[in-house]
């Protein structure tokens, strides 16, 4: 198995959501979201209603993958931090525990220094949560809700 399956439970989800909610406030950010390296959105907070978070998540993962590819060519492990500066909006991207990506979108109400500072603390917390989550998922006692699905269930998906 290359990667253990990514699974999210209510307990850990709430912990993660707390971290991103707090980061929005602490960093004066517009939006904070977390994506796994495959581009799946895990949690989001802030002004997300007018934002296509699914697309952003996939592009962020593509971005991190491309940067990771460059790092490999330069014999670096990873480029863990990226910053993109726009006219109004800025994006700070941080790789957490080489597994998930923490994205902070902010404008002139905040600053890069503040965002970096707050992201550092949030990263540590997130890292701990994801470590615990991984252990839980690796536990052979963890059951899949899909172990019981039937061919009929699958076929029903495709009946228009």
């Amino acid at each position, binding site marked *: 198995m290359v990667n253990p399956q990514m699974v*999210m*439970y209510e307990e850990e989800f709430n912990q993660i959501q707390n971290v991103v909610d707090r980061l929005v406030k602490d960093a004066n950010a517009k939006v904070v979201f977390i994506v796994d390296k*495959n581009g799946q959105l895990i949690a989001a907070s802030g002004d997300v209603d007018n934002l296509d978070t*699914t697309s952003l998540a996939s592009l962020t993962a*593509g971005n991190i993958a491309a940067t990771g590819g460059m790092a490999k060519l330069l014999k670096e492990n990873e480029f863990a931090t990226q910053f993109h500066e726009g006219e109004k909006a800025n994006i700070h991207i941080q790789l957490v525990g080489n597994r998930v990506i923490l994205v902070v979108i902010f404008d002139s109400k905040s600053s890069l220094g503040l965002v970096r500072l707050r992201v550092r603390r949030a990263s540590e917390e997130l890292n701990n949560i994801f470590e615990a989550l991984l252990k839980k998922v690796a536990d052979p006692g963890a059951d899949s809700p*899909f172990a019981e699905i039937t061919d009929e269930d*699958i076929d029903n998906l495709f009946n228009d």
Partner: protein
Amino acid sequence: MSFINYMAREINCKIVYYGPGLCGKTTNLQYIYERTNPDAKGKMISLATETDRTLFFDFLPLALGEIRGFKTRFHLYTVPGQVFYDASRKLILKGVDGVVFVADSQVERMEANEESVENLKTNLEEQGYKLEKIPYVIQYNKRDLPEVATVEELRQKLNPMNVPDYEGVARTGVGVFDTLKAVAKLVLTELRKGGP
């Protein structure tokens, strides 16, 4: 690597369309995008060159419906087919749950198809996957063009494992949804076994 979210009661899977340059990977996604209800799809993203060749990937999120109370979401990606974009192709295969190989049926593209299958195997192995072990289907595209190889020839050269295969004309949609359904079914069946 699928992602099961108990909180949102969602399951997310990643499907990659692979194949030689200009075989119709992007056209497959465009057709799916055009023919899917607005509430079942997200925005389609194409990172392409000015001449509409895929530079990095196309991305299309699709919601297929519910299984046992879990929403099933599929993220469809294409790779850039041109030979020199190999580094990008490797990246896109990360975390893949299922692969569609789109073959160009034209006789003159047979060699390009075979090279691309070999490239797919190599790149999957670099990520620790084996083509024989993952959900995999093949589409013989461009069946409407003159000078195409017979399906038997294509099968013999490109489908030694006898995986599900379909004839397609992606431009008009022939075989596009059959191919998608086939790979989605295989991915969900794999999930039942306990995941990739």
